[in-house]
């Protein structure tokens, strides 16, 4: 490839990044696609499709064949060199440079070998990460995130006969519970904080989304088939166990999001999959100076951020599922192909994707307020509950900082207790600390998207251009 030709770097090869890379490559733009994982697919496609048995709902089947088509198109572009794929490349930072951008990544078994990718434009498709709110016992082995449970499934670590509880809030709990049940795990309960009456109130609006309802109905049918008890308006108040998880206590919530006393009930299980929704990964966007809000990176109808030459798509701009991520990525790729070639894009060319995006964003906007952790979830936290695992800070310490030291928001609570200063940079405990401190935005990690050796930082950008000794241009997986 000649360096004069403008190239697009796409960070993240999940649904959004893949769609962006393919749309741009189809329109003649050279693309470098980077992802930290060993293959493309992101959160959604990386896992094998949950095997829901013979009566697999049509919606899922659809998804799976869509994925096969994406992979075939990617293989075509890899073969011609139109797309270069850098798998197992962790982008730790990106910066503006004359004529474009530098994307700094680490690769190799120790994640310590540097490479810098130069590009005329960037698509940020870094997805999101799962939010988990603490409760007494949440650090016991056997308590995993909802996404982690799917990984366990993949590794066949969860075998038939094991008992799992799936808990938290959000639409992702359904597929996780259904997936676990389908692979032979006894799902002893699906515990969802949301109130079903709220859904009934929105029934008229929701009826406008038959495909999404069909998907949900498919999961519901699977749960019914596997006799999974569903406990709406409930929450896990405690996980029990000495060396590992043995049981959980779940309790009902009242109308104001408080635990109803006397409703606690113990359920034996050896796995608890918890999740309280996804939060956007926005480190790279922020270090590049792109505007972000709580929900994610701010974009315009072409998926452009407010920094010229940078697009963003998928979960990093706000949640809404894989189909939405695909639509947004497609639009970003089309827009980038035109704009980097110096043309104004013809939005009529992506009218279909724009319609899908509009519908799914509206759907997500309807669902969003229905889900959410119980308003007073932090009341269940005993003082000795660890909040920050990296720095070993418990809830009592954070409360004391607020009461005695004048910590009035998440940032000062962090400064005064070290909660959130450790390896994960508050990705895990940020929301909990913010709640205990009585508000304020959760502190945002950064500016590095990954820890970086100082020697690499000191010479960032000095490596020979895209010299990647022994890098593998991995063909898409089976």
């Amino acid at each position, binding site marked *: 490839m000649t360096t004069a030709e403008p190239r697009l770097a796409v960070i993240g090869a999940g649904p959004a990044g893949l769609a962006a890379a393919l749309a741009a490559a189809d329109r003649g733009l050279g693309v470098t696609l980077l992802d930290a994982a060993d293959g493309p697919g992101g959160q959604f496609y990386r896992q094998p499709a949950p095997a829901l048995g013979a009566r697999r709902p049509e919606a899922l089947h659809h998804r799976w064949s869509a994925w096969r088509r994406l992979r075939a198109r990617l293989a075509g572009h890899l073969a011609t060199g139109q797309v270069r794929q850098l798998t197992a490349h962790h982008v730790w930072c990106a910066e503006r440079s004359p004529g474009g951008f530098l994307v700094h990544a680490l690769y190799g078994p120790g994640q310590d070998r540097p490479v810098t990718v130069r590009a005329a434009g960037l698509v940020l498709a870094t997805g999101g990460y799962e939010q988990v709110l603490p409760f007494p016992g949440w650090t016991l082995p056997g308590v995993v995130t909802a996404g982690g449970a799917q990984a366990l499934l993949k590794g066949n670590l969860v075998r038939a006969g094991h008992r799992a509880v799936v808990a938290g809030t959000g639409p992702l709990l359904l597929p996780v519970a259904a997936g676990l049940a389908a692979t032979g795990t006894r799902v002893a309960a699906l515990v969802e904080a949301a109130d079903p009456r709220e859904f009934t109130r929105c029934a008229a609006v929701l009826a406008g989304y038959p495909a999404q309802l069909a998907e949900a109905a498919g999961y519901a049918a699977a749960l019914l088939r596997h006799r999974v008890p569903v406990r709406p308006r409930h929450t896990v108040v405690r996980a029990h166990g000495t060396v590992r998880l043995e049981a959980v206590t779940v309790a009902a919530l009242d109308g104001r999001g408080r635990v109803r006393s006397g409703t606690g009930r113990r359920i034996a299980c050896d796995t608890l999959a918890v999740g309280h929704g996804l939060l956007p990964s926005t480190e790279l966007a922020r270090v590049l100076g792109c505007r972000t809000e709580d929900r994610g990176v701010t974009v315009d109808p072409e998926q452009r951020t407010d920094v010229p030459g940078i697009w963003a798509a998928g979960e990093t701009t706000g949640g809404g599922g894989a189909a939405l991520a695909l639509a947004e990525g497609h639009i970003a790729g089309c827009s980038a192909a035109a704009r980097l070639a110096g043309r104004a894009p013809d939005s009529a060319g992506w009218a279909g994707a724009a319609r899908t995006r509009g519908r799914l964003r509206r759907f997500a906007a309807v669902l969003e307020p229905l889900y959410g952790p119980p308003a007073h979830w932090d009341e269940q936290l005993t003082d000795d509950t660890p909040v920050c695992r990296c720095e070993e800070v418990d809830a009592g310490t954070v409360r004391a900082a607020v009461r005695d030291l*004048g910590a*009035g928001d998440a940032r000062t609570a962090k400064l*005064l207790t070290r909660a959130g200063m450790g390896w994960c940079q508050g990705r895990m405990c940020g929301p909990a600390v913010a709640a205990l401190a009585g508000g304020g935005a959760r502190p945002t990690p950064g500016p590095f998207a990954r820890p970086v050796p100082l020697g690499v930082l000191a010479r960032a950008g000095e490596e020979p251009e895209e010299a990647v000794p022994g890098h593998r241009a991995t063909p898409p997986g089976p």
Partner: protein
Amino acid sequence: MVVGAGTVGAACAFYAAGEGLRVALVDRGPVAGGTTGAGEGNLLVSDKEPGPELELALLSTRLWAELGAGTGFGTAVEYESKGGVVVASTTEGFAGLERLAAGQRAAGVAARPVAADQLRELEPRLAPGLAGGVHYPQDAQVMPALAAAQLVRAARAAGARLHTGRTVTGVLRDAAGAVRGVRTDRGELHAPAVVNAAGCWGGELAGLAGVRLPVAPRRGFVLVTEPLPPVIRHKVYAADYLAGVAGGSAALTTSPVVEGTAAGPVLIGASRERVGFDRSFPVPALRALAAGAIRLFPFLERVRAIRSYLGFRPWTPDRLPVVGPDPRVPGLVHACGHEGAGIGLATGTGRLVAQVLAGRVPDLDLTPFRPDRFREPTGSRATGEAR
């Protein structure tokens, strides 16, 4: 009435309460939410040339040591009197350091030249080939946010009242022009004296009282590494750091100060540039900090940086803080503009302000720190931030 609950305001409230005064401390945010929560906590005498700032630093260092020895307080604020080592890579640089040290010794600083071959006894992981250095045993450190919070806590225990989440929007004055309190977004608070401890925003607060005070933000970054076992014993910095501190330049200067912390991570500070309140992270500044730290400590090459944070130092045109009563507005007392040394200088500043408020003669002559020393702006290159 102290406005600003950073380390400086906290120290003013603490010492004023100790004088038996009735004290209220107001901040629009939480305690330590300003620059205090975004900097490092070096308490340095080593980086100051003989003169009024060094005198304030020596007073402050004594007071920090007193506080640090107090039961519980020292550990609570992570006070460590670990000493500093300034190193030079060239013989001319070393000669310069020795000259500075001689002057500092005359002013009462403990400063011991260290020959090249003894440097690594002091600091085993230092790079080979340095020309020499100076050891400053008085240099110490605290964790700044904890220092502010514990000073506030002690002030409250002595009767001070804390009002967080309350923005001062005006300074109330009587017919004769004297201060009688402040207006806030949640009502008025009355007091015969108002202390301006608003850090970078000290100029704005002075403006509310109708006087000009040129305080401008000077941005700085700190790099934080993964936690390490204690391998760096002192605060170690290169001689060129001194040029950066003393220089008033608006352009970026980076010269590393490397230090371990009680919690494990190594802190690498600090860059200096005057770019207004710009919160973006330019990679070149971070790159320069990392490179400088590796020049001092080659083993850092493979150590990972996990984050970086930035803050805005309260800068004044002549690089001295503004401490003492404002002759233009009776009842207004300033305690701001400490730039990159506000943590270190907080105790001395608090003590001096408390003495002024109590009507006593302050321990130091406040003339060099007086608020009306700045010339009125002429033309367009007026205030600090305009350059």
